[in-house]
C-alpha cells in the first residue's frame, strides 16, 4: 500500500487552495452577501476549525454549524430522566460525552458526586455485559443520532438480560433539517449532510426535503478536501438554482444506505415528536422504543420522578446561555456573553461547551472565524 502518496487525495494543500479559490469565485457569481450554508455534523465543524478552513472561506460565505451535535441537542428533560433514575438508585450506563451535560437542575456527574452509580461505556455492548455480570438494574441512557441508534437497536434485538432497560434520547436528523429550513432567521441556502448518518440512511433520504424546500443537499466526508469539495459542489447547485442531492462521499455512502441497519432501526424504534435542546419541537425527530419492546423501556419499567429535580432553581448563568440560537445558526459563539469567560470547557454552562462536538467547545479550542486581515 502506498500510504505516502494517498493522503494527497484528502489533504493536498495545492488542491485545497484551488478549491478555496473556487469557493471565492462561486460566491461572487451567486452575488449575495452573505451566502449561508449549514452543516449538521460535529465532525464537520471539527474539520473546519482544526484545519483553519474558515480562514480560506470567502468573507461572504457563511458556513454555519447547525444542530449536529447529538449531545448538545439532548433535551433538558431527557437528562433529567437519567439523573432522576440515577438518584433513585438505578445504575445508569451511558456515553462519556453526556455525563457532564446539565439537565434542568444538574448533570449525571453531579448525581455521581452525590453517590449515584454512573457507568461510562464506549458501546452499548458494554452496558449489556455489565448487566450480565450483576443483578442490579442497569439503564442504558441512549443518546446519539441514527448511526448510534442502530447499535442500540441491535442490542435490543439480541435478547438482552432482563435487568437491562433503555432510556432512549436518540434523535433522527432529517426532520430537524426541515425545522431549520423553515426558520426565517437562518436563511440557509444549502446543507452539507453528515456522512456517517447517511451511511445508514442512504442519500435518498434527503430527496423529499429537497423537493419540498428547493434547497440543495450535499453529502460530504470529513477530511479537509472532502469538506471543501462538498462546499464547492453545494455552491454550484445554489448558483445554478438546481436543487438536488449530490453524494460527495461515495466511499462510505450509497443511494440506499445500509438496508439491514435501517430494518433493525425501525423494528425497534418509532419516530416521535419531541423537543431538541434549544431548537424547537421537532416532529418525528426523536426515536422511542416501539410498544413491542415496552418491557425494555426504562420509561415504562420505572416511575421516573423528575418533578423533584424541578424544585431546584436552575443556575442564573444558564439563563444567559444562547446554545439554542447557536445550534439554529442564528448566532455564533462569540455573540454569547458567557463564551470563553464564564463558560469554558473546564466549567461549562451550556451543552455546546461540554461536548467535543459542540460548536462552542470547538471554537474555544481552535478559534472560530479567524480574521487574517486583522493580523496583516
Amino acid at each position, binding site marked *: 500500500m502506498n500510504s505516502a502518496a494517498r493522503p494527497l487525495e484528502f489533504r493536498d494543500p495545492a488542491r485545497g487552495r484551488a478549491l478555496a479559490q473556487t469557493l471565492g469565485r462561486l460566491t461572487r457569481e451567486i452575488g449575495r452577501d452573505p451566502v449561508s450554508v449549514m452543516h449538521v455534523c460535529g465532525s464537520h465543524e471539527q474539520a473546519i476549525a482544526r484545519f483553519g478552513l474558515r480562514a480560506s472561506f470567502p468573507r461572504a460565505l457563511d458556513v454555519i454549524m447547525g444542530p449536529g451535535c447529538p449531545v448538545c441537542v439532548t433535551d433538558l428533560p431527557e437528562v433529567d430522566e437519567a439523573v432522576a433514575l440515577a438518584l433513585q438508585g438505578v445504575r445508569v450506563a451511558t456515553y462519556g460525552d453526556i455525563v457532564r451535560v446539565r439537565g434542568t437542575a444538574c448533570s449525571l456527574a453531579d448525581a455521581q458526586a452525590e453517590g449515584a452509580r454512573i457507568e461510562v461505556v464506549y458501546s452499548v455492548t*458494554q452496558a449489556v455485559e455489565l448487566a450480565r455480570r450483576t443483578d442490579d438494574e442497569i439503564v442504558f441512557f441512549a443518546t446519539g443520532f441514527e448511526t448510534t441508534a442502530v447499535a442500540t437497536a441491535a442490542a435490543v434485538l439480541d435478547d438482552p438480560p432482563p435487568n437491562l432497560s433503555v432510556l432512549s434520547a436518540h434523535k433522527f436528523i432529517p426532520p430537524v433539517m426541515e425545522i431549520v429550513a423553515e426558520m426565517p432567521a437562518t436563511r440557509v441556502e444549502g446543507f452539507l449532510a*453528515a456522512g*456517517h448518518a447517511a451511511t445508514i440512511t442512504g442519500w435518498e433520504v434527503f430527496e423529499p426535503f429537497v423537493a419540498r424546500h428547493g434547497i440543495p443537499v450535499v453529502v460530504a466526508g470529513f477530511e479537509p478536501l472532502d469538506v471543501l469539495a462538498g462546499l464547492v459542489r453545494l455552491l454550484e447547485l445554489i448558483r445554478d438554482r438546481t436543487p438536488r442531492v449530490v453524494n460527495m462521499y461515495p466511499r462510505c455512502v450509497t443511494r440506499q444506505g*445500509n438496508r439491514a441497519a435501517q430494518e433493525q432501526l425501525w423494528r425497534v424504534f418509532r419516530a416521535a415528536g419531541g423537543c431538541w435542546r434549544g431548537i424547537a419541537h421537532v416532529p418525528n425527530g426523536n426515536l422511542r422504543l416501539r410498544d413491542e419492546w415496552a418491557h425494555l423501556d426504562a420509561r415504562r419499567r420505572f416511575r421516573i420522578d423528575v418533578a423533584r429535580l424541578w424544585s431546584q432553581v436552575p443556575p442564573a448563568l444558564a439563563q444567559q446561555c444562547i446554545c439554542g440560537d447557536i445550534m439554529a445558526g442564528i448566532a455564533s459563539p462569540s455573540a454569547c456573553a458567557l463564551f470563553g469567560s464564564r463558560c469554558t470547557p473546564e466549567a461549562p454552562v451550556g451543552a455546546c461547551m461540554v461536548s467535543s*462536538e459542540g460548536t462552542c467547545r470547538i471554537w474555544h479550542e481552535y478559534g472560530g472565524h479567524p480574521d487574517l486581515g486583522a493580523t496583516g
Partner: protein
Amino acid sequence: MCLGVPGRVVEVDGLLAIVDFWGVRRQVRLDVVDEPVVAGDYVLNHVGFAIRRIPAEDVEQTLALYETLLAAPEEDPMAADVHGELAAAGRKRT
C-alpha cells in the same frame, strides 16, 4: 461518539468479529452490517458495531488515510481522535 474507524477483520464467530485496528484487536458486532463479512474484509466501525463493509476498491484509499493520521506527529489535529477511539476500544476485552 460519532467517529467511524475502519479495521481489518481477523476472524468471525457468528455476529462477533475480532477486528484489527493497527495492532489493537477488539470485538466488533456484525448485527447491522449490510453485507456478509469474512476474515480479511475491512469494515467501518462505529461505537463497537460495523456499519459498513468497505468495498475492496475503497479499502486502500481509506486505510492509507487513517495510517497517515496515526503516523502523524502529535499535533496532527485528527490523530488524537483516532487514538482516543482506539484507546477506548482497547480497554474493552477481546
